[in-house]
């Protein structure tokens, strides 16, 4: 097909088109993930239990902020993409994304998520930043930016998991293309350590809801190595309290090895 014109845009003008790029970013990440993990398999029909497990294991840290729209758009995108591949692919893609919509809908609409103090805190922080940006008057609205960052972050994370650069414990394999970590850390760079912990807690909350609902179906439950993630991010940003964390960790290890640190029994009562 012939290209009749090309318009070069500067950075500011590019931002006008960010919405389609965000949403396609999410769809792209999900599509790649499903292809790489074999859910979109055009030679064999995959049973729906496997599809459910795969969809449940996709980390969606920004569900409260992003919403269902990217998943709905993904259906259209995957349909168009797999049109080049076959009827089975289309059927499977439709089934898997309809399933993703079904799974996400009650979670997003549940009172537990809406009223969860951690989710509310994130919304409060986001709203505060929105008001600040409005006062500044010089930047795009924060929900839009959050959507952008979130969409690309989800797509990037899905891709990183699908290509085994991070595993289900969210342990980063830095020896593989280490600059990829910046895709995630860029998203988090505005967030200080306390907010990061809030974000991680909310992630765990959402995962727990999905786990409760699909406990019997989950073959492989993603484990969240929160402390490890916080330490890695701290190391990347050289926060002043990292050395304290490290020396404490070293002290504990030291005492344990000498048998001088006794674990407190789980049933011990507080004084």
């Amino acid at each position, binding site marked *: *097909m*012939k*290209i*009749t*014109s*090309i*318009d*070069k*845009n500067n*950075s500011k*003008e*590019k*931002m006008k*088109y960010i*919405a*389609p*790029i965000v*949403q*396609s*970013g999410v*769809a*792209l*990440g999900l*599509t*790649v993930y499903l*292809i*790489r993990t074999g859910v979109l398999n*055009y030679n064999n029909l995959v049973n729906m239990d496997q599809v459910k497990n795969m969809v449940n294991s996709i980390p969606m840290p920004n569900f409260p902020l992003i919403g269902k729209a990217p998943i709905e*758009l993904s259906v*259209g*995108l995957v349909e*168009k*993409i797999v049109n*080049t*591949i076959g009827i089975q692919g289309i059927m499977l893609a439709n089934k898997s994304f309809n399933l993703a919509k079904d799974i996400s809908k009650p979670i997003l609409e549940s009172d537990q998520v809406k009223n969860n103090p951690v989710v509310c805190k994130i919304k409060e922080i986001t709203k505060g930043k929105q008001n600040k940006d409005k006062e500044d008057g010089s*930047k*795009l609205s924060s929900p839009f*930016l959050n959507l*952008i*960052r979130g969409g*690309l972050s989800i*797509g*990037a994370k899905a*891709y990183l998991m*699908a*290509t085994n650069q991070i595993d289900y414990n969210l342990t980063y394999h830095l020896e593989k293309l280490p600059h*990829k970590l*910046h*895709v995630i850390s*860029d998203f988090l760079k*505005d967030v200080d350590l306390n907010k990061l912990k809030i974000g991680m807690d909310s992630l765990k909350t959402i995962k727990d809801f999905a786990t409760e609902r699909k406990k019997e179906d989950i073959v492989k439950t993603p484990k969240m190595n929160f402390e490890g993630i916080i330490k890695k991010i701290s190391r990347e940003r050289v926060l002043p309290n990292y050395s304290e964390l490290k020396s404490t960790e070293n002290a504990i290890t030291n005492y344990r090895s000498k048998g001088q640190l006794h674990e407190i029994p789980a049933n011990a009562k507080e004084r």
Partner: protein
Amino acid sequence: MLEFGDVITLENNKKYIIASTCIYKEQLYVYLVNINNYEDCILGTIQKDDLSIVQSEETFIEVMPLILDNVDMSIFENGG
């Protein structure tokens, strides 16, 4: 040289923004998103003023991760 954020118009008058690009086997691949219809996305190659849509499953599977890999995050620095 084509890059992220450029808008191309095709002979059917549809406008697409370049969401990402990559070089694979010495060919330039682009991921295009219709600026008026987000579901209309194209993975294709561009040579001179000709856009060819990727038809091969194998190529698609190889190129899509590279495309996602190359998403330009620099515009989000300094708050966007």
